[in-house]
């Protein structure tokens, strides 16, 4: 096993607008929450692209794929691919579950309703 920070292959391959890979290996949704692993303790390899570096810094606290994309001025599909590479290499993690195809469970919907009703009285 090569560690996530092993020199064999960084998180990065030259990134040419989805030219290399158009389909991320794991499915991230627009609302999936991302967070950088140990933002103080590690740095990306020098081979990391500018966009990967930007995303890695952006996610030093918890943020969704869509928000990261908007703040960085990148499209969601580009951020998804960058994020997958960073996740595979151990520099980024997801902090929420990727949604299932079906409707969320009743108890989750009830929590959503409670939260929305609190908004009314806020």
């Amino acid at each position, binding site marked *: 096993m090569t560690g996530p920070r092993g020199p064999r292959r960084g998180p990065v391959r030259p990134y040419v607008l989805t030219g290399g890979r158009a389909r991320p290996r794991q499915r991230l949704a627009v609302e999936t929450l991302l967070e950088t692993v140990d933002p103080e303790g590690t740095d990306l390899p020098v081979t990391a692209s500018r966009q990967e570096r930007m995303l890695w810094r952006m996610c030093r606290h918890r943020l969704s794929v869509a928000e990261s994309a908007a703040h960085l001025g990148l499209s969601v599909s580009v951020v998804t691919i960058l994020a997958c590479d960073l996740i595979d290499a151990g520099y980024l993690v997801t902090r929420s579950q990727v949604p299932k195809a079906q*409707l969320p469970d009743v108890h989750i919907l009830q929590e959503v309703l409670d939260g929305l009703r609190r908004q009314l009285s806020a």
Partner: protein
Amino acid sequence: MDSADNSAPDGRYLAPTVDQALKILVVGSFGVGKTTLVGSVSEIDPLRTEETITQASTGVDDLSGLSGKTATTVAMDFGRITLNSRMVLYLFGTPGQRRFWDLWEGLVIGSIGLLVVIDTRRIEDSFEILDQLDVRSLPFAVAINQFPDSVRYEEADLREALDLLPETPLVHIDARSHHSSTQALITLVEYAARIKAQEKVA
């Protein structure tokens, strides 16, 4: 009560305790007030991302004569509501026209449902969207955005014009109002919860 005191230093970030992200799609044609609605309930200023979607041009009238695939850029405005210490709800405003349906494919997975915003002055713009939702059997509610100069129709007439099922919720809203927009979201989630509960029984 849940507290937001443990939120991250920068207001753009979520609290480190949030580990569940949900979403609702706010769908409608251009200018019906999707972004206004998102803005009135969102805790952050609405953000925008642009997505390029590639699709076959067959069947798209205004591109007839072109062959193969074509790319369309679509802007998505979105906002968020932190519901409690561990749950956040995202609202994605997406255009409803047929040429954007490819974008929906990815977006609807795992969503609570869709809020279809309609302007009664251009009611025919919404037919395409509603047809598509019927085909896909996604939970949706209809929100009539009341503009100052729009006529207020009887609910029965609207339901007939839009060909809605009796159980599909229909609400009148002022998309500028936090209260009114939140109420519309509540109506949709209540409906989704009813559907989910029935699924269990069945």
